[in-house]
């Protein structure tokens, strides 16, 4: 399944060469028909995250302070970890900024 993954707010620093956008091909976990968010998170951890995985995941979900957006919509509105992904979906992981005065 072809997905576009984007990382922002500093999360890109955890990836190789800090590249923000990744076009990827992810297969469902054995026995499942579709790729679920839960499966995507572990795929990202094993395939894209190069350092400090604890800055991306906590337990089986993202760490506090990370917003996940599926096709520009908060994943909380789409089922969270159980959200099913479709071909060509865009998933954005963004860390909140606290910013600058």
């Amino acid at each position, binding site marked *: 399944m072809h997905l576009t993954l984007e990382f922002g707010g*500093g999360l890109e620093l955890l990836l190789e060469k800090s590249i*923000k956008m990744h076009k990827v091909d992810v297969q469902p976990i054995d026995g499942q028909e579709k790729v679920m968010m839960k499966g995507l998170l572990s795929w990202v951890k094993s395939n894209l995250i190069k350092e400090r995985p604890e800055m991306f995941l906590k337990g089986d979900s993202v760490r506090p302070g990370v917003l996940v957006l599926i096709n*520009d919509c908060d994943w909380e*509105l789409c089922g969270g970890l159980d959200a099913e992904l479709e071909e060509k979906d865009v998933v954005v992981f963004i860390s909140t900024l606290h*910013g*600058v*005065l």
Partner: protein
Amino acid sequence: MEAMAGELARLRAEREELDRRIRLLESQLEATPRSSASPAGEAIGGGGGGIGAAACPIRRRGNGFSAADGLPADMIYRYSRHLLLPDFGVEGQRKLSGSSILVVGAGGLGSPVALYLAACGVGCLGIVDGDDVELNNLHRQIIHKEAYVGLSKVKSAADACREINSSIKVVEHHHTLKPCNALEIVRNYDIVVDATDNLPTRYMISDCCVLLNKPLVSGAALGLEGQLTVYHHNGSPCYRCLFPNPPPVAACQRCSDSGVLGVVPGVIGCLQALEAIKVATDVGEPLSGRMLLFDALSARIRIVKIRGSSSVCTVCGENSAFTQDDFQEFDYENFTQSPMSDKSAPSLDLLPESDRITCKEYKRLVDNGEPHLLLDVRPAHHFQITSVSQSLNIPLSELEEKLQILETSLKETMNTSTLDKVPPLFVVCRRGNDSQLAVQLLREKGFLSAKDIIGGLQSWARDVDHDFPVY
């Protein structure tokens, strides 16, 4: 140096005197009854006076010629381009001039917010900040001028706003917003703009706005990215609905560590001013329940839909038991494990005293010509800004994989000296935190001569070489 300091003191005294005369004239003018012109802006709570500023009464007198429900002639001319907007018009301008908005933070975000809100004719504009203007603020905090370096940000920002628009009321709050004063200050305003720079303050402002039921226009900018949303308005979430748990400390980047391109907070600040105006006038669709994500580098703006307010939120939820008393007692710094000021970087204390030396001790050792190696573990782009001569740069993040280079350099140092053992290895960074982590790592890897230089280059500039550039 001395001559400059003297000149500076003389100019400051001259300015004080001018300010005094201006205040005198202003108060005389204020005391004189007038028919049409509106009062000049005034400072309340200046110089550490009462924080509450009582209220934010909006004084605007109509003039005899305008229709009963029309705008006074001076306002019609000043805001004519607003009035010509069909969607905004007289009604919008009237609501704006009747509204009071509090800007928390007079920095990179707060600068354009305050300037635009003053210019557009908000009735009462409050500005809160406890900091002074510093030279390294000016590249992004465009409300402040060089002449104000060393003076209060609030005073600087308020003066700039009054220069632009003397017909609005500008209230100065010379304090850092804290749980003990926030309720009293925020209470006086209709809308709050969060233009701050740190996590505990963001939670605090959000909680305060929920308790007092005020819409919160929240913006953030860092590096080359910005974010913006309107919390607690039209069913939108509060900060805690979105982020019930604070992120780990290591994930909190701050601009004094990470840098920021000046115009990025400028863009976000302008959008915050826009959202505040929309909320104040009830014109258009505010960014509530949505979040704007700005990526300056790729020139992309994404607007995403976010969750609504959570019924189980500990602060704004249905069964919330969070009271104003709880708020005043709440320890936001402990909750987020991070400080409310951008300046006080958390300082580590990892090493025994025997593994550390002070900058002055290090200087003495250099002066005595003692053979050693100085390792600078800052990122390469920091090293390019400035460095101590004859230091070797291996960034902390690459240290483990580049131990071989270090090994070689140590051998070279040993060979060019009369030493028969491994020469001392001193490790330095910007503030003295990363260098401790590096020494810890190096000692684990067998570099037993590694020692940390306490306080890093910041201490070096302060205690040893006063001409060493600080950044």
